[in-house]
């Protein structure tokens, strides 16, 4: 029996020729990451060990992104703990104004490479699977242990192969593909498994769309999502790094827990209604659902191509009078490029907020918290009860095209409904 790409990465990191799904192995980690929410706990646990240094400061990354620029004194104190530790350790540290959301920033800096094992104290660490690496989220204590040892333990997950066939219709992107998939299998449909994304649709899919898909693997309960390595991956990485890396591919006779084929030729832009990412419907079937806010951004859809899609729709149009539209670039680089290209101008002219880079609104931190009874269309990844504010607020997940169209029309809408 052959191995999947996930098996091969884990075997290599464990110093073994093969691994079997279900067995527990210890693997070397190439990168360990935490943020301003999870780092203080990791640091407190790490300090209990009495060690002076992390295993390798150049493989330990700290990114303030959730509650920064600091939303209040307590958040500022948490960030301070992280910053002081990171600087004292000589670890990799991304300060605001030169960075942004962790899952946008790390790839931009060439830190997420094919064949690597990456762990982060953030559930959306699985995002990096778009770059053909094994990347997964863990809690602060696991990260503390890895900061000390340079290794972590994993139960080798089985792999579910998703094969996307057909031709992707207009206005349908990576976010729609992953929402459709989660809608099909449910929020625990890939529990503890790896989602391997393949097929002709994936071969033609731009990197930003692949990133959005890998990002939401966790919303199906997966250990991670992973893509093969191809010319698109190579070109993307060539712009950000000249470091060597070793891509992996699944064997033709690799063992899969399940193979799921999805023909997406007739897919329409989708939304996930409250309160689960699996509650998926075509956006144009949602009638008469007025909204109060739109958020375009996050580690899922805060990249340049997402902002370009939003700008194309908002250009020459106005955000609906009763809607607040908040556009959050995923990183400083994205913000700079969006400004150079004139996207920022389009947003401002349309009556949207164009903010600094932060996770803020996605998790109800700040910069767009919802009041009781408010409804928001958001390009983020979770529509759980209370996620973006009051527990009686409603979050509707969508891609950037649906979010921008909804902002203009003041209700949940598909881009096709603009004309």
């Amino acid at each position, binding site marked *: 029996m052959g191995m999947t790409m996930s098996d091969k990465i884990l075997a290599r990191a464990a110093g073994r020729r093969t691994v079997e799904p279900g067995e527990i192995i210890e693997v070397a980690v190439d990168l360990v990451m935490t943020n301003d929410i999870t780092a203080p706990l990791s640091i407190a646990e790490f300090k*209990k060990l009495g*060690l002076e240094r992390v295993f390798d400061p150049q493989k330990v990354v700290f990114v303030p992104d959730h*509650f920064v620029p600091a939303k209040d004194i307590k958040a500022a104190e948490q960030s301070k703990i992280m910053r002081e530790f990171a600087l004292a350790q000589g670890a990799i540290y991304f300060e605001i104004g030169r960075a942004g959301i962790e899952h946008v920033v790390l790839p931009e800096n060439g830190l997420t490479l094919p064949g690597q094992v990456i762990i982060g104290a953030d559930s959306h660490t699985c995002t990096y699977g778009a770059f053909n690496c094994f990347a997964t989220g863990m809690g602060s204590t696991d990260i503390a242990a890895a900061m000390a040892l340079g290794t972590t333990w994993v139960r080798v997950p089985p792999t579910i192969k998703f094969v996307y066939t057909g031709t992707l219709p207009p206005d349908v992107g990576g976010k729609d593909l992953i929402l459709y998939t989660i809608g099909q299998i449910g929020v*625990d449909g890939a529990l*503890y498994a790896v989602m391997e994304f393949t097929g002709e649709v994936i071969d033609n899919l731009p990197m930003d769309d692949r990133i959005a898909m890998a990002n939401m693997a*966790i919303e199906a309960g997966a250990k991670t999502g992973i893509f093969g390595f191809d010319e698109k991956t190579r070109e993307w990485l060539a712009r950000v790094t000249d470091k060597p890396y070793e891509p992996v591919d699944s064997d033709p006779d690799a063992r899969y827990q399940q193979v799921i084929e999805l023909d997406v030729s007739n897919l329409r832009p989708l939304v996930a209604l409250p309160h689960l990412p699996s509650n998926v419907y075509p956006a144009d079937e949602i009638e008469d659902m007025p909204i109060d806010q739109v958020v375009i951004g996050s580690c899922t859809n805060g990249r340049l191509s997402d902002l370009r899609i939003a700008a194309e729709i908002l250009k020459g149009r106005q955000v609906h009078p009763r809607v607040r539209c908040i556009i959050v670039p995923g990183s400083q680089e994205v913000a700079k490029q969006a400004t150079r290209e004139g996207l920022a101008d389009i947003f401002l002219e349309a009556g949207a907020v164009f903010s600094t880079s932060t996770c803020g609104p996605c998790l*109800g*931190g700040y910069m767009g918290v919802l009041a009781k009874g408010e409804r928001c269309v958001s390009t983020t990844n979770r529509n759980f*009860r209370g996620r973006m504010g009051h527990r009686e607020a409603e979050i509707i997940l969508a891609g950037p095209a649906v979010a921008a169209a909804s902002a203009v029309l003041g209700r949940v809408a598909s881009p096709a409904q603009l004309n």
Partner: protein
Amino acid sequence: MIIRGRVWKFGDNIDTDVIIPARYLVTIDPKELAQHVMEDIDPEFAGKVQPGDIIVAGRNFGCGSSREHAPIAIKAAGVQAVVAQSFARIFFRNAINIGLPVVEAPEAVAETETGDVIEIDTDAGTVRNTRTGKTYQSTQYDEFIQQIIRAGGLMQAVAERVKARQQAG
């Protein structure tokens, strides 16, 4: 280990945002976190839960964010253990790491209600409902996970390794 306690029953897909909303993630103080445990699924829960109680829930308990503040809030509220039909993987791992017993027992969950008193026998791999008198199977931990539990949590297990490494020079 036998864990006996009164049950609070919850449904499927209890996510970490309702277990401990992000607006409270500006601290790592367990007592402060415990004051808001389960707040967005049951705003009165923190006031009702008593030390020694047990949470029983459906599928995919703890899905969502990797925030370890979730099992910490549950444990600091005095909850002894969580029994569920299944757990989201990051939550399961976090709970084991901080010494909060988490037990998968699908049949027990189906026939247990709020207010019941249950007995979890982690060695035998059973859950007994004292109201109905019925005993159910629960999944048992691997030897590797048992080692973490015996050490009292992941960092205690890691500390033993670090010490051994230092002694070996």
